[in-house]
């Protein structure tokens, strides 16, 4: 009997804690597969952030550190500078990265820290119960913007990939989505490329993944996938924002 599909060795046997229809599970799998395929899992150190992915230190089958809210890129910097031959990556949501941790993330990028940031943007605070995020869309109803996000009151959704494209230290930056198989395959390529660049010591790499939160969006899982395509991607257009180019393709 031939095994056609099995769980990645980059994941532990700990059951995932994510809700049905949440794309964290898919993204974990893509990260895990990339680490295994590039043969860097045993050198990898994952930085778990605060939010729904706080338990990712239990899921990635490598060494890990759990960072204070927003501080993942500082912690990753601290490790990478003393262990330059290891692979260090952060796994952060939009509240963690784009709100409380934006300073740490910008400066890690600006220094060209040779780390990889997996940025999961689902436009809401999931773990704390559906509060407004810096990336929430205009009109999006959350528990702290109950009449919908109002541009005049709350400001606009912050566009991280567009901002970070202006930073010289960034070697590779792409925004992808996992809402259907076509985009899923592109997302895998992007994540793997980011880790390969780190392996080749090219500098700061980040992949922004448009993600879902059906529970806090108040929609069914299938409708959440549709909402990514119909509402989120027009605000957060997909594509490569920066690629300093590979020489060892």
């Amino acid at each position, binding site marked *: 009997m031939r095994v056609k599909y099995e769980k990645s060795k980059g994941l532990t046997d700990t059951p995932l804690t994510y809700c049905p229809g949440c794309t964290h599970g898919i993204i974990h799998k893509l990260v895990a597969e990339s680490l295994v395929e590039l043969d860097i899992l045993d050198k990898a150190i994952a930085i778990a952030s605060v939010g729904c992915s706080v338990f990712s230190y239990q899921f990635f089958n490598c060494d890990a550190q759990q*960072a*204070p809210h927003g501080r993942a890129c500082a912690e990753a910097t601290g490790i990478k500078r003393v262990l330059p031959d290891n692979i260090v990556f952060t796994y952060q949501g939009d509240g963690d990265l784009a709100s409380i941790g934006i300073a740490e993330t910008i400066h890690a990028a600006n220094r060209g820290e040779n780390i990889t940031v997996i940025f999961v943007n689902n436009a809401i605070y999931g773990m704390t119960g559906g509060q407004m995020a810096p990336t929430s869309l205009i009109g999006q109803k959350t528990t702290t913007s109950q009449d919908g996000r109002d541009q005049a009151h709350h400001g606009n959704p912050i566009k991280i990939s567009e901002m970070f494209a202006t930073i010289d230290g960034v070697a590779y930056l792409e925004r992808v989505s996992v809402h259907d198989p076509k985009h899923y395959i592109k997302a895998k390529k992007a994540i793997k490329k980011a880790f390969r660049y780190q392996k080749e010591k090219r500098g700061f790499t980040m992949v922004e993944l448009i993600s879902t939160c059906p529970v806090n969006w108040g929609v069914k899982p299938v409708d959440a996938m549709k909402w990514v395509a119909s509402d989120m991607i027009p605000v957060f257009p997909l594509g490569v924002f920066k690629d300093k180019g590979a020489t060892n393709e």
Partner: protein
Amino acid sequence: MAKILMKGNEAIALAAIKGGIDAFYGYPITPQNEIPEYLSKHMLDLGRVFLQSESEVSAINMVYGAAGAGKRVMTSSSSPGIALKQEGISYIAAAELPCVIVSVMRGGPGLGSIQPSQGDYYQATRGGGNGDYQLIVYAPESIQETIDIMKDSFNIADYYRNPVLVLVDGLIGQMMESVDFDKPVKERELPEKDWATNGTINHPGRRNVANSLHLDPYGLEQHNIHLQKKYNLIKENETAFELVNMKDAEYVIVAYGTMARICRSAIEMLNEKGIKVGMIRPITLWPFPEAAFDEISEKAKGILCCELSMGQMIDDVLIANNGRHKVGFFGRSGGVLPDPEEIVDAIVNFKDKVVK
């Protein structure tokens, strides 16, 4: 090496190098800037890591990362900067990672002043971070003593897997003294860092995780009980103090750091006046040297706690004294340093008015 004349902050930096520092992460703040300035040059020359972070918050989290990776790592700052580091310090203590933090105190609260102060006793010993944790806090009174402690600090941190805080004030940071870097450091048998997050390639078959999250309340309580056991061991093994002129002392000063130096001169002046005054000088502020208070003569008439603050260590003095003797307080704050004569007057005043 013969004795050399050196500024306090630079001596702290060199002592850290002699103590085996692998990496330094920090952010500028007066009056400690000579520490990162010195290290920015010498660490790179030695092939070690120096990085100026974008904030104190970031610096302490870089420390968290490198400490978790098993390296000897340090940061330094001053009062408002240490306030910003408290979140990370709590996480590091919770995750039981070793590191060294140097705080060169200035006047507070708020942005305060840049002059010497001891207004951060609470910050150092009670913690500004959340939860039941302790730092091992040293409060040296001279540059030489600071060097000796700094050289040992990484060993102590590694031995207990706990952050060590070296607490000095701007006077010790900024003055120059003749110092010797060759004094031997206490031998300690250090455990292997088999917990370091340096990749499973270095420890096949086992994932290492640095973490402070324990959602199960019973699990977290067990972790806290484990931490308390360690803290009790530190109390037993590492509590340090000096007794000055305590035999037959009628009055006992309790002072640390720069204030203890000023009190030494005052004690000589008081003894010349025929007033027998001794001093308990805590070298560790946590653990606080409670046992030193058993050395106070039953005939002693009172204890005067002297601080460069409005009165913070006095809480621990009252606990250690446990009602045995009358306790008074003398303090200057905001960066004001008293003359020894003011301490003499304070003792005379205490003697005449408070102790009958």
